[in-house]
C-alpha cells in the first residue's frame, strides 16, 4: 500500500458500473470492490448466479470483470488505477457472431 508523507494511504478513484468508489493505491481491484461492499462482481454465464472473488490469488477465475473495455480480467490480480472503469462482464455467446468467418 502506498503511503503519503503523513503515512496516510494514497487513494485512487475508480468506478464500478458507473458508481464512483475510492480505494487505497496499490490495492487489487478485487480488494477495492470488496471494500466498497460489492460482492457480486458478475454472474455465471449459464446459471446466472452471482459470482465474486473466492481465492484472491488468481486460481479460481471467479472474479472476472471487464476493465476499461477489456473483458476477462481477473480482479484479484489487477491493481487499481486512477479513473479505472470496471464493469460486470457482458454475456459471452461464443457461437453467435464471434466464431464464424475467417478462422
Amino acid at each position: 500500500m502506498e503511503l503519503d508523507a503523513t503515512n496516510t494511504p494514497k487513494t485512487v478513484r475508480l468506478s464500478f458500473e458507473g458508481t464512483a468508489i475510492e480505494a487505497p493505491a496499490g490495492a487489487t481491484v478485487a480488494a477495492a470492490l470488496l471494500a466498497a461492499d460489492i460482492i457480486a462482481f458478475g454472474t455465471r454465464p449459464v446459471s446466472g448466479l452471482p459470482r465474486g472473488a473466492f481465492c484472491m490469488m488468481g486460481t479460481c477465475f471467479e472474479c472476472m470483470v471487464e476493465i476499461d473495455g477489456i473483458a476477462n480480467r481477473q480482479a484479484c490480480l489487477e491493481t487499481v488505477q486512477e479513473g479505472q472503469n470496471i464493469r460486470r462482464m457482458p454475456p459471452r455467446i461464443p457461437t453467435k457472431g464471434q466464431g464464424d468467418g475467417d478462422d
Partner: protein
Amino acid sequence: MQDYDVAVVGGGLLGSAFGWGLARRGQKTVVFDEGDRAIRTARGNFGLVWVQSKGQNMPEYAAWSLRASQLWQDFAAELTENTGVDVHYVKQGYNIVATEAELESAIAGQDRITAGMGDKAYGYEVLDHKTLKAVAPHIADSVPGAIYTGHDGHCNPLFLMRALHQDMQAKGAHYQPNTRVGAITPRADGGFDLTGEDGTLLGSAARVIVAAGHGAVNLVRDLGIDLPVHADQGQVLVTEKVSESMSFATGTVRQTDNGSFLLGASSKQIGMDTRTDLPTLAEVARYCISVFPFLGKLRLQRAWGALRVMTPDGCPVYQQSEAHPGLFSFACHSGVTLSSVHALEVAKWVSEGNIPSEFNVFHPRRFDV
C-alpha cells in the same frame, strides 16, 4: 471377527463407486483414501460417459460399457435424490472427427465392435456433414461427419465424486482420508489386516478391494498379484466460462455445466509425469479448433495433465486372488463411464465373494502368452 465386511483401498472414482455400492447393499464398509499426494486420476479426468469405440479388441468390454451407459440415468438420479448433488449427466454425444481418414477409421472400429458383439451389438449411425450440422451448427466446413450411437454422453465428474462420498457415508461407510495403506496381510480366519505405512493396524476386513490405480501396483505385488497398468498422460485445456451453447460431448470437446469448454484427448507415455507442455497443449487446441472454429475465439483459463490408469489392451482388469480368496484387485481407465456398473454390479460380486464366470475374460491372465 473382522472390523468390516469390506475394506476398499482407494477413494477415487473406482473406490468411491465400490464403497457406495457396498454400503448400499448393507455391507459394513471402510474406504481408505491416500490423500492429495496420491496420483489422483479421479481429479483430472474429462467427464465423458462413453461407449462408442470401446472394446474393439474385446466385445465383452463393449457390452460392459453399454451396460454402464444403460444404468447411468438411474444411477445419477439416485445419487441426486439422495444427496441433492446434480451430477449433470447429459446422454448426448457424437464422435465428431476432423478428417475423412479419421471418420473411416472410426467406422472400421465400430464395425469391429459390431461384429464382435454379434446379436448383442448396439446400432450406430454415421452422420454426414449436413446431417451433423443440423445438430451441431458450430462445426467447421471441413468436418466430414460423426458417429452417433445414442449411448454416449458426459457428466460433471467432480460432482459425481462428491455425491458418491456424501452418500456412501450417509449409508454408513467409513471414509478414512489421508490414509495410505502400506500392507494387506491375510489373517488366519480368512480375512485381512490392513496396516498403514508405519505398521499401525488400520483395521481388518473379511474382503478387500484394491482400487488404488497407480498406487496399487506395489501394494498387491507383495501378495503375488500382477497388476499390469501403466500411466497414459492426457492434457486438458479449459476455456473461459461462456453462455450455454453445446449440450453434447464429443470425444475431445465438451462444455461443462458452468460454461467452460474442456478440450482434450492427448495421449503420451512418459511415466508418472503430470506436467503440461506447450507443444502438446497447442496440438490439443489446434485439433479442437479445426473441428469447432469458435473455440479459437475463447480465452484459455487453465490447463492440466493427468495420468490415465491404462492396461496393455485398454480394457478393465477385474480379478480375485486365488491364493487369497476375498482379495480383489480392480483397475481401469474409464472410471466415470463404468461408475454405474461398479456401484451397482461389481459391488454385488464382492459382497457375494465371487466374480461371475462371464467376467473371467477381464482377468489379467489374458496378458500371459
